[in-house]
């Protein structure tokens, strides 16, 4: 029998004193492609990182590569989060930075990033085109990293992984932020890789998987447990619903009949047109779904509403009845809006703790710079209780599982009971149970007179309250319609 590709025996791993992996044994043989799923926070990513050599536990971890293979003898781990630095080597970005234009480049362009990668890994550019093409990245070559949307960042990570074709490829949450078409293409690529001998390990609870996946497992009490199929994976128990805190059961004061009014909106960066001729009116109390492929301009459109985009001043936009650029400050605007977006999450203060982060929502700041009054403290505590976050209130947000992090940001967003909620892919990276809970909270919140703009890729997992839909395609509004059929 040949050596297993991955041989792990008696692996132990602890994070800050807590046991994550406990005497874990696992072997991956040639021809096997694994899916690791199961409950959030069970240690899936930790195991993946150990295999990739990014975490050190105790015990045996051996990787046996094939010596005479055209594939590089490498383990590549694609994390569920993307990271890049600016040209000066630091990571101090703010989430609005991609909209502020400076002549001095802050980050590498996509092309320069890929060129550096090719040099480091000894790759040939000839093989790259097909991946760029299939992920529709050809036009983005000259784009700076800071300007990419979250979905585009995910694609760039995947392009690099597919290009390298390592002998062992581990992808943590491969589908996060990808639209339907991209997911399908990606699965095709995974199958192609498996066919040439790349061994895959996917960490996800997704159901639409590449055909090559032939082993399923989850982590249970620190050890790996093989199951028969993706359906057999454990799911997080659905959460007990508690009543919404009273202060959120009050309808927010609606500042105007028309919350957002946009006329013939155009946004372009140099020659690149991002938004073209968009007309959109959002009235108080309406619940909108905003959809579109990756890079279709959704986040840019929303940034015009949240006061984060300088080109708002050059367009015909009125917010809460007041034209933009007529003496209002962005803080006047933000006061009335609650926002979550993948970018806000990604760039969020890495030193923030749960309680302080929620409190900062009163002031729309990243970081808490003021004393919080007794009344406000009570509201924070009620929300912590509602989201079952009281136990972790003093923890760094970054040390929580992704699903909990997102709940903290939702709590931060609604703490001031804003009139307009903008939820840009709020469930990105959450599994079905977490998403269902999240959407149920959104539905309940919106029952109390809020206006909602919700961005989501999946028709299957959306809040029930949505009633109108706009679809963007390459920066243009393709569909604006009432949503008749019940989506749930």
């Amino acid at each position, binding site marked *: 029998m040949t050596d297993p590709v991955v041989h792990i025996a008696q692996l132990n791993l602890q994070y800050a004193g807590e046991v994550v992996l406990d005497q874990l044994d696992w072997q991956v043989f040639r021809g096997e492609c694994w899916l690791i799923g199961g409950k959030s926070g069970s240690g899936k990513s930790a195991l993946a990182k150990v295999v990739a050599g990014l975490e050190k536990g105790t015990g045996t971890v051996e990787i046996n590569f094939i010596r005479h293979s055209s594939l590089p003898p490498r383990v590549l781990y694609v994390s569920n989060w993307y990271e890049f630095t600016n040209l000066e080597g630091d990571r101090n970005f703010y989430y609005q930075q991609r909209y*502020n234009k400076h002549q001095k480049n802050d980050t590498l362009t996509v092309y320069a990033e890929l060129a550096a990668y090719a040099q480091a890994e000894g790759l040939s550019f000839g093989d790259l085109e097909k991946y760029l093409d299939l992920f529709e990245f050809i036009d983005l070559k000259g784009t700076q990293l800071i300007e990419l949307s979250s979905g585009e960042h995910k694609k760039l990570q995947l392009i690099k992984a597919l290009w390298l074709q390592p002998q062992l490829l581990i992808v943590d949450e491969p589908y996060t932020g990808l639209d339907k078409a991209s997911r399908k293409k990606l699965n095709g690529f995974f199958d192609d890789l498996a066919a040439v001998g790349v061994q895959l390990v996917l960490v996800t609870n997704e159901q639409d998987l590449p055909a090559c996946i032939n082993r399923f497992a989850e982590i249970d009490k620190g050890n790996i447990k093989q199951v028969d199929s993706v359906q057999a994976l454990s799911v997080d128990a659905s959460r007990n619903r508690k009543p919404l805190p009273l202060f959120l059961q009050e309808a927010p004061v609606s500042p105007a009949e028309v919350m957002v009014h946009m006329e013939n909106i155009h946004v372009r960066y140099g020659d690149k047109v991002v938004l073209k001729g968009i007309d959109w009116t959002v009235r108080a109390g309406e619940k909108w779904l905003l959809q579109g492929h990756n890079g279709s301009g959704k986040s840019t459109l929303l940034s015009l509403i949240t006061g984060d985009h300088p080109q708002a001043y050059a367009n015909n936009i009125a917010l809460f009845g007041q034209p933009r650029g007529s003496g209002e400050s962005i803080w006047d605007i933000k006061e009335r809006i609650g926002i979550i977006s993948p970018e806000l999450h990604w760039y969020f203060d890495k030193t923030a703790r749960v309680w302080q982060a929620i409190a900062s929502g009163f002031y729309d700041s990243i970081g808490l710079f003021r004393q919080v009054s007794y009344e406000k403290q009570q509201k924070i505590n009620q929300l912590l209780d509602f989201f079952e976050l009281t136990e972790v209130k003093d923890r760094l947000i970054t040390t929580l599982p992704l699903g909990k992090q997102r709940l903290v940001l939702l709590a931060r967003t609604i703490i001031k009971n804003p009139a307009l909620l903008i939820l840009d892919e709020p469930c990105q990276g959450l599994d079905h149970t977490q998403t269902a809970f999240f959407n149920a909270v959104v539905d309940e919140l919106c029952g109390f007179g809020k206006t909602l703009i919700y961005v989501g890729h999946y028709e299957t997992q959306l809040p029930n309250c949505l009633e109108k839909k706009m679809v963007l395609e390459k920066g243009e509004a393709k569909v604006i319609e009432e949503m008749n059929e019940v989506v749930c």
Partner: protein
Amino acid sequence: MANYFNTLPLREQLNQLGVAEFMDISEFADGVSALKGKKIVIVGCGAQGLNQGLNLRDSGLDVSYALRKEAIEQKRDSWKNATDNHFTVGTYEELIPTADLVSNLTPDKQHSSVIDAVMPLMKEGATLSYSHGFNIVEEGKEIRKDITVIMVAPKCPGSEVRAEYLRGFGVPTLIAVHPENDPQGKGLAEAKAYCVGTGGHKAGVLRSSFVAEVKSDLMGEQTILCGLLQTGSILSFDKMIEKGIDPGYASKLVQYGVEVITEALKQGGITAMMDRLSNIAKIKAFEVSEELKDIMRPLFQKHQDDIMSGEFSRTMMEDWANGDKQLLGWRAATGETAFEKTPAGDVKIGEQEYFDHAVFMVSYIKAGVELAFETMVEAGIKPESAYYESLHETPLIANTIARKKLFEMNRVISDTAEYGCYLFDHACKPLLADFMKTVDTDIIGRNFNEGKDLAVDNQTLIAVNEAIRTHPVEKVGAVLRKAMTAMKAIKTV
């Protein structure tokens, strides 16, 4: 034009040097109202110009940019910066006559010619704003008597001014009104409103004067901020190479070490920085820094004296007139130093290691901060002003070294600071030559604690702690830092 400061009687010199009032946030309750609906025209659109303008506009103010005709015709970067962000851009002739407030955010060197071009176009009773007082104080520029002259000086690079604003905070800021130009008495209200517009009011504002700002700013940047960090980096690196430490390691220890060490300084002053060392290392660092202070004190005093007398700006302006000959020569020489040319090695250095292996650097930074502060205060500058221009800015400059060494530091700082930095560096290195012969790798390059008994004498430690904690820079720092606690950590490592 005569040096403004030198035209003043001593009484008035002391009076203006002594303006330093730390303002309470309640003094900014009027927000931006003093500038609401007024037309703000910014001259220049580099890092400060663009980022201040973006903030002012996002605060609900009316901002446009006046650029020289050539900059517009040739579509230079300043033109692109402004138009890409959808500001109105026009020539001086088009925009200045409409302005209620003209903000001059061009480089120091251009101030005189910019003001000569702009002043005749300004409308009666308008306001002229600066972010640095060199033109008024050192060049002695006289502004038309109907014009109000104010200063709003964010104590951070332009990119930080924007980043901090968008997180809902701001950067520490100095504001001032020029006593010769406040005919309507509106200067302070407008300076405060401008400061609110940039977000500065949330991070601690010091009311200063043009004179106090210039004399302290020049002193800080020449000595502790840029000059001393440059000298310290080069001496540390050269010593390690001489003693056989791996060049890649030495390069990394210095490049990132200044940032890691001064991050502790930023959060808790010299006390916190020294507390990162073991007790024996702290005592050693204290002794070394006392010795360094004795050696360097005359040099710090000379810099302060030349700044006060105007001798410094006179010689620098001579170099301006001479096509920056000296400056360019020194800049090239800095690029050729071994430290600059040795890339940081691919070695992991732990956060604590940056302290334990660089006791000399800690001592040197302590000596520099304290000396700069002491010398400024002795010269009549108030402790609050001295703090901003010494301890407060040190981590910001150290961050530029972490990014791309001395080249980056000297690129980011103003030409004025860079000129002063080289002056200091060239005088300081020979001054320390004998001392450096006594330095070994126990205090730079290797772990000071290694192989040593960590025991200390109680009385010695108590005395050292007492001396560190009661230094005047620590007293004023404790008060000022309270307003700045929310400043985020700068991290490159």
